[in-house]
């Protein structure tokens, strides 16, 4: 505790402001863009473009094509065993034959995850301008290790989860959840994104 008091004392001695004055007096100019000005359709298209620019394979599908597209993508990679979080919508795998799904419930160990042919998840949101996916451990996403260890990641993004700019994303995200921002495939692996436009 001695260091704590010493550091705070030095900080207070160094600052021309009185301690406890608070932060209200110091205003931050926020003249940068904080809201999207782009039409929705363009935002969704921009996300696809920018994510592809980050070496992700992106496909846009209608809601009723999702299961088939998912199956096609997994078959194309010859996936036999994929890890999935608990609570993934059943419908996603309706078209799937011959691919074993390993539910992360109870949690799979690291070695098992390392040996899967990939992981399938949803996301919390996506940022068009930067081609970024953000996962927060919420619905259809699971814990962080689940998407970190496998070399292939297939992520489903619903069109209404795509925001235009970084400030919109920060406003929507919950800081108390563990957040993973992903722009591009895992090292030595692949990232596939299915954008569902309903």
């Amino acid at each position, binding site marked *: *505790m001695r*260091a*704590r008091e010493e550091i705070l004392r030095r900080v207070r001695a160094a600052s021309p402001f009185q301690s406890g004055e608070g932060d209200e007096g110091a205003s931050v100019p926020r003249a940068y863009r904080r809201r999207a000005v782009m039409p929705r359709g363009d935002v969704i298209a921009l996300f696809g473009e920018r994510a592809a620019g980050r070496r992700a394979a992106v496909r846009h599908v209608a809601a009723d094509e999702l299961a088939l597209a998912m199956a096609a993508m997994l078959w194309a990679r010859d996936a036999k065993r994929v890890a999935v979080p608990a609570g993934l919508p059943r419908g996603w795998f309706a078209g799937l034959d011959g691919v074993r799904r390993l539910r992360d419930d109870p949690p799979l160990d690291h070695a098992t995850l390392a040996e899967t042919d990939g992981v399938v998840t949803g996301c919390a949101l996506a940022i068009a301008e930067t081609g970024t996916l953000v996962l927060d451990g919420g619905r259809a996403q699971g814990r962080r290790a689940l998407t970190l260890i496998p070399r292939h990641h297939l992520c489903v993004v619903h069109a209404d989860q795509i925001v235009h700019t970084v400030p919109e994303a920060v406003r929507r995200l919950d800081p108390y959840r563990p957040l993973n*921002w*992903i722009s591009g495939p895992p090292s030595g692996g692949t990232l596939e994104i299915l954008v569902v436009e309903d």
Partner: protein
Amino acid sequence: MNSFVGMPSFPEASSVAVGDAQLRHNLRKATHTIRAKRAAVVGEQPDWAALREAGAAIKDRTLRHLDVYLERLEAAVVAAGGTVHWAADAAEANRIVTDLVKATGETEVVKVKSMATQEIDLNAALADAGIRAYETDLAELIVQLGDDWPSHILVPAIHRNRAEIREIFLEHMADWGRPAPPDLKDDPRALAEAARLHLRERFLSARVGISGANFAVAETGTLVVLESEGNGRMCLTLPETLISVVGIEKLVPTWQDLEVFMQLLPRSSTGERMNPYTSMWTGATEGQTFHLVLLDNGRTSVLADEVGRQALRCIRCSACLNVCPVYERAGGHAYGSVYPGPIGAILTPQLRGMAGPLEESLPYASTLCGACYEVCPVAINIPEVLLDLRAKAVTHGHVGQRLAMGAARRVLDSPRWLAVAQRSAGRFRRWTPKRLPGPLSAWSDTRDVPVPPKESFRQWWAASR
């Protein structure tokens, strides 16, 4: 930052570096590539000037009321199940981290690339306590295996070419874990794959992770780590215990402030719209044990300087390095600290005080062209601080003989420093005395003349990703 005392002062170290064709070639390539990418992604951002203004203002607000925000951060981290420690200097931080690791009973830790832990030379402190620290960033791995020092904030192994990297892998990987395949080629793919497998084994088995952070949000207690490779997020996530060492200037007041820095940092740093991976976590996450170590180590003295305190706004993007004509020729090692380039020239003398010839010479490591100020995403007026420091250096008087004697004595105290010094001295001997004569010329030459590389580290690195 004791680790670097005994390094030659900037004029000597830089003139030796200028004679090193390898280094000069790599630096030129790397700095020009990143520069062009940065200019493109900054140029396309319509509100860059407004973001930069906000970035500087947020950091100023933090520094003005740092005591308030430090206490707020501490409370938020504790509320989220973490433990907060305070370290006044490097020794104290090293002691805290060492004790925390010992308490887990582990003798190995994995590390995420972090300048704060380099600044305090944590790896050496852990080694003294019988704890092995594994670096998990590719470039840091090369630096560690080669028993070397980083020379660039983002591309620490910029002074190595890929033939050298292959040698280092073949010779040293086995000492640290999974060996390199005996038939390892020096093409970028093979090197990257060897590194990937070697590193993967490390973080899948690790039980303690050590990191720094790019930002710490006072309001929520959230820590943020941006990275390019994805190994950092493994170290942050997989171990049961996570220890983060964070300089007290890394704070931002509110969660909303991240909307500014998540744009400024990736674009300024690697010239990308967004870096590949960012982790954000608040307190003890998913069953982990979490310790935050808040580090002063000279920062409060920087804060006390009216002109110099703006250096604490720095978000370590390295944009100023990449535009600096002096850095391009001198290389990172010449700055004698973990903070190279223009930011190092103003930060190091302030953090350590005008403690010796290196610190006194650093404010002169600039032509005052102002390019660094122009690119800086938080508008640090580096030339202004340099001039202010020069004025202070003059009042301290100049040191000639003391350099050779003092540096030599301190370097001789430690074999590792001797090796570094000998390498520098080796280069120094080949330097043609066009500029500044130096006192290190008597030291023996133990370094081979490097062959100019076919491909720079940065090139193969870019190609391997």
